């Protein structure tokens, strides 16, 4: 082929790519509007401020200013609920509470604890409520669920021809449902009183926005907005599991891109979209899919909280987790960003941790050694970046190993939020037991022998068959707190402190029938947690007040990490586990 012909054909190939002019127009409008609103805002700032103040009195507290989806930043995200045994079949959020259905177990409400409220199981819940009434479906039938009386009532029978799922309130007498059919699912409207059914449109999982009279639903892997009056359809995006906020300003959905699923939000007017998770690649074999699969991102009462179910996609097929994602129009500060990052590492929310890094590495978290706490040391503003120095505490499960690393986090502002550009380890101090049963302190490569097993007064040791287990040193470096693991048939753990100046030992606590798991110290150095399991493998934890010598015992609880002087702990039940924040000063706990 001649050169000229090649060139001509290359241009022909180019012209064969058809430009989507609707998309071109839609995107263009966002820039025209943006510029205009900027000018308008500048001129009317005083008036706007007054209006906001005025509205703050008029509007209920939960009403949030309506900003574009692209302006919402992730303020925090944490997986706070693990369902260990059994599947979560459905969940919804109503009036500050999360309602979950667990396969074969019933419907539960999450509020300070996970409490069963119904024996019924749901395969889908309504997104919204009418008064105190939620809807749910099970095996094709539709039920009304009164959250005040905690009673359910069947309102519609499914048959072999008409099986219903994904209920949604239209008004007090009408509901939208997805009618499951062999060929194609239909969204139908049903009069609850007369049971009269009208087919609305092909699709499934509809959310209804009353003020706009629109349905948002999924059809063939696309999210669609359907105007109930005119029948006009608009494609939002490719995706599944759509859900709209109560005020109808945003749509949440799950979208897959190159095998990686993520949670996205879009403005209802489609002006902007925003990806709010960062699904990392799987830990082991690259499979072309992300580490997590996400399902059903639903909104809390306000327009700033999302709940999403996520499951591991790789070799570590763990339980389903519910993650809470908090959005804000304000950017997190540099220190908040570093705190969020370290928290995400400790609870192994790799997707959130990665979203805070500029160039995330392939793997972030490992089983061992693991981080058990941190303390922010200082913040320094440079010309174009900010440096945040933090100490991070590490341990290795059931082993006599402890490390304090000081890191320098360099943060830059990118798209109006801080991201961690680099993380540099400045120094490390390790505390460990060597093969001769001696405790060594290794600071930046220099070894110092602190004491050996033989140095411990014999009166403290019940049996000779012991080994060093979890240990740490206090923040001032003056004391080492360590544990001795009894290796006899009936195991026993003893906690000691060792004063480096006086070389004296002090017995802190004896945990009978225990296998030591880890110990950790709060940021103030006053409270110590020790996690251990009994011979019957129950999870136990103590909080030891080093100032007062007082011990508080917990059963079926594991410590996750110290967030300053508050403990993030995990309550472990037969079917699930949940995270709480515990204040050792007051003995009170709050849920996520």
């Amino acid at each position: 082929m001649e050169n000229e012909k090649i060139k001509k054909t290359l241009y022909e190939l180019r012209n064969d790519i058809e430009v989507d002019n609707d998309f071109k127009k839609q995107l263009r409008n966002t820039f025209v509007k943006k510029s205009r609103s900027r000018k308008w805002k500048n001129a009317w700032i005083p008036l706007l401020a007054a209006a906001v103040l005025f509205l703050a009195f008029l509007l209920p507290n939960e009403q949030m200013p309506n900003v574009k989806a692209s302006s919402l930043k992730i303020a925090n995200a944490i997986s706070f609920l693990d369902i260990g045994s059994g599947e979560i079949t459905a969940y919804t959020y109503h009036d500050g509470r999360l309602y979950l259905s667990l396969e074969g177990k019933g419907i539960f409400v999450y509020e300070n604890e996970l409490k069963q409220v119904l024996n019924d199981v749901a395969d889908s819940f309504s997104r919204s409520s009418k008064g105190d009434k939620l809807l749910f479906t099970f095996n094709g039938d539709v039920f009304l669920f009164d959250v005040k009386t905690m009673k359910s009532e069947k309102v519609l029978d499914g048959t072999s021809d008409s099986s219903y799922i994904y209920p949604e309130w239209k008004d007090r007498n009408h509901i939208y449902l997805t009618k499951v059919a062999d060929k194609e699912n239909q969204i139908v409207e049903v009069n609850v009183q007369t049971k009269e059914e009208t087919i609305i449109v092909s699709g499934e999982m509809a959310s209804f926005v009353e003020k706009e009279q629109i349905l948002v639903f999924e059809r063939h892997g696309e999210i669609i907005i359907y105007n109930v009056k005119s029948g006009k359809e608009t494609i939002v995006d490719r995706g599944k599991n759509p859900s709209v906020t109560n005020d109808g300003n945003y749509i949440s959905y799950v979208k897959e891109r190159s095998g990686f699923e993520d949670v996205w939000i879009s403005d209802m007017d489609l002006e902007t979209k925003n990806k709010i998770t960062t699904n990392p690649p799987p830990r082991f074999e690259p499979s072309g899919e992300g580490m997590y699969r996400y399902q059903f991102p639903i909104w809390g009462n306000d327009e700033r909280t999302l709940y999403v179910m996520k499951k591991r996609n790789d070799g570590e097929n763990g339980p389903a987790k519910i993650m809470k994602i908090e959005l804000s129009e304000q950017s997190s500060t540099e220190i908040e960003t570093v705190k969020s990052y370290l928290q995400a590492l400790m609870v192994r929310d790799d997707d959130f941790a990665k979203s805070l890094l500029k160039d995330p590495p392939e793997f972030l978290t490992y089983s061992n050694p693991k981080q058990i706490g941190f303390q922010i040391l200082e913040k320094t503003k440079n010309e174009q970046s900010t440096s945040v120095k933090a100490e991070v505490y590490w341990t290795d499960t059931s082993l006599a190993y402890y490390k304090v690393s000081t890191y320098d986090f360099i943060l830059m502002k990118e798209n109006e939020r801080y991201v961690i550009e680099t993380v540099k380890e400045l120094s490390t101090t390790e505390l460990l037991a060597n093969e001769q049963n001696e405790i060594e302190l290794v600071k930046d490569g220099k070894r110092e022998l602190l004491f050996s097993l033989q140095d411990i007064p014999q009166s403290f040791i019940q049996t000779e068959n012991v080994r060093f287990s979890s240990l740490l040193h206090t923040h001032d470096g003056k004391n080492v707190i360590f544990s001795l693991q009894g290796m006899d048939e009936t195991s026993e753990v003893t906690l000691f402190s060792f004063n480096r100046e006086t070389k004296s030992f002090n017995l802190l606590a004896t945990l009978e029938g225990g296998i030591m798991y880890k110990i950790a110290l709060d940021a103030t150095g006053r409270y110590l947690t020790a996690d251990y399991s009994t011979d019957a493998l129950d999870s136990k934890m103590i909080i030891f007040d080093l100032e007062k010598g007082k011990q508080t015992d917990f059963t079926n609880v594991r410590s996750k990490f110290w967030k300053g002087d508050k403990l993030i702990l995990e309550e472990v039940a037969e079917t699930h586990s949940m995270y709480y924040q515990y204040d050792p000063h007051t003995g009170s706990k709050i849920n996520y």
Partner: protein
Amino acid sequence: MEVKFVDLYDAYFDDVYRYVYVKTSNKWDTEDLVSDVFRKAFEKFSMLEGHPNDKAWLFTIARNTVIDYYRKNKSVLIGDEFEQYLSPLKFEDPFDGTTEKECLQKSLRHLSDEDLEITELRYFADLKFKDMAVILKKEEGSLRVKTNRITKKLGVLVKKCLGGL
């Protein structure tokens, strides 16, 4: 500012769209990436002042956005050679065109990464050599020579392809 940015948008949207499409081979990713490109350009628009070449400036953003996208989505492949992992040229819909056109399309897949990038910038993004020189940080003259060689190479490959039919 408003008028100017929209002018830039109107002038180069189609070129950015086609350039991104040829990289991603699908409409959805193209739309996401094109949105990203223009949002970044909008945010950085004040920096364009004093830049001698607005199209080269815009395409530097476009090219970096595509590279970032592949880096983030295939982080296993982070490294200097990431460009070799950019998806091979393929289109969602088969062309109605001639056999020669099909052969040319196939031949593009046999180009080295650098040659493919030059071809995509030249023909699919419709860039001038001086713009490409800014984006690729190479001499304009060497890009001319290189493009000529690539065209010849494609001619040979197409001939082979046609002969093999």
